[in-house]
């Protein structure tokens, strides 16, 4: 609808909208995160919900203790291999529509602990992630920025067509395979439907060519 016409009408007290805008407006402004912090980034997440960088004013009013009542899982902190099956199980228990923010370097790709035998190199190996926040730990403002990114992303989701979100698409799965504890490592080490090793041009050490893809 024409913007000017919309403004004119709204001045007269007639509000026009589309179903998509209304639907997305309701979802964006009341995303309830799951009370789930793993490590140091959890303390910055808590600081974001405290009085100084209040996250409640963005709609994350209550942090739900149970995954059955939450929309958003902020994976804040290092995901270890011992914890990974539990994170995936929690994700499976969340009802659609659900989103994941991967907060901190450890949740993105293992972070500073990447060499560890017990460290999962990124939670996106097993569950789909919507927003990544780099940082170690990211500042509370960065978490707020990521939250707003997520809100923008939800706002732009159409209700029909190719790009419709997962919960409106009967073909997409909403639960993902939970890894098992093996003798030396998790089995499987990654979910091949979700994560493929990116084919980045790896530069040779000592040359000037930087990676490009």
């Amino acid at each position, binding site marked *: 609808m024409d913007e000017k016409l919309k403004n004119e009408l709204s001045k007269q007290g007639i509000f026009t909208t589309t179903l998509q805008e209304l639907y997305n407006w309701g979802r964006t402004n009341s995303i309830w995160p799951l009370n789930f912090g793993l490590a140091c980034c959890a303390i910055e997440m808590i600081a974001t919900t405290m009085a100084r960088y209040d996250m409640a004013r963005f709609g994350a009013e209550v942090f739900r203790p149970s995954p059955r009542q939450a929309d958003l899982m902020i994976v804040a902190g290092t995901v270890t291999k011992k914890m990974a099956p539990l994170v995936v199980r929690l994700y499976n228990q969340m009802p659609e529509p659900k989103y994941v923010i991967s907060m901190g370097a450890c949740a993105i790709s293992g972070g500073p*602990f990447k060499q560890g035998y017990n460290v999962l190199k990124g939670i996106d190996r097993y569950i789909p992630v919507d927003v990544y926040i780099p940082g170690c730990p990211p500042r509370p403002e960065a978490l707020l920025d990521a939250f707003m990114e997520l809100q923008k992303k939800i706002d732009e989701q159409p209700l029909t067509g190719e790009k419709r979100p997962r919960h409106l698409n009967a073909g997409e799965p909403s639960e993902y395979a939970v890894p098992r504890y093996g003798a030396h490592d998790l089995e499987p080490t990654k979910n091949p439907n979700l994560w493929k090793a990116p084919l980045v041009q790896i530069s040779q050490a000592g040359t000037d060519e930087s990676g490009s893809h």
Partner: protein
Amino acid sequence: MSTATLPTAHFDLEPMTGPSKEQLLELSMGPQHPSTHGVFRMKVVLDGERVVRLKPVFGYLHRNHEKIAESETYLGSMPYTDRLDYMCSITNNWAYALAVEKLAGIQVPERAEYLRVITGELTRLQNHACLIGFLMQDMGSSGTPLMYAFREREKILDLFEALTGARMMCNYMRFGGCRVDLPDGWLDQAKKVVADFPRFLDEYEQLLVSNEILMERTQDVGVLSRELAVSAGISGPMARASGVDYDIRKVDHYSIYDRFTFRVPLGSHGDVYDRFMVRLLEMRESVSILEQAMRAVPAGPIVDPKMKIRGFRPKPGEAYGRIEAPKGELGFYLVSDGSPNPYRYRVRPPSLINLTVLEDLCLGRNVADIVAILGSIDIVLGEVDR
């Protein structure tokens, strides 16, 4: 009711005197639970509401710090020590720097010692404040004490950010001193924060100390006897609340703590209330140490001028260095074989060892008491699992 051993199933002919196996409930207070201590799991066996057995499960945040340290240089492990007890990064750095200084015989100049004490005691202040806040939140007063505590913590984190560049992972200590000197005006700002702190403590005490719900829920809950505390290696405020008069600042005479007069609060009951009170009183003592230290900061270098970090290879040998961290005795054990990387790097985690007695404290109590007891032990999972 005897709760020492798990009873076997009864036959119908015998009168029911205790719970049978079918009446017991095994609950997993799992790695994700609303109490914000992190990914810690307790397998609790309950008879109704009473705890019959409690087995903690660790390792959900085992990040292989010790193994990574064997492939890093000595200085390369310093940022990793930030992430051990992630609420108090500066005291972790201090303990590690102390251990390496013992290993290699490095001296620390005066000004650096004062800076260490000032930043260390500020860390203790914000840790104890947040701990009390978290304890209150776990017991149900959702939000308010924690909000007040985080308000003070933000003031202290602003100081750390101005000094070191980071709010939480400060990476401030170096072997032989500190990384960076005070910027202009930092000391005045710090003095203002410390001068305001007793007002916050008064407010906190007024709200909490005589609070009936707090007293009902914490007095005589989780009583730790003095003998068990010493035998189980409990250290820090948890041990002092049980009457163990052991504060490493007074015993080891490390750094320049001998120059400051401060008292060590001791509890007599060893219950959750005592641990909470000991921490409140320790905050007051920390404020006193800070006032004394900030009056007398000398000029001078902040790092030992003879210390060369490039090609730092301590002679073969070993050293165990420990400090009084806010959570207890934090120690680092380093074995060197003359190479730039440590041969063995071990963190002595106070949080893990303080959890040795968790089952003893919780047996026979209700489920709700477990939360209060766990909150009073003051654990941070980064340190428990490393």
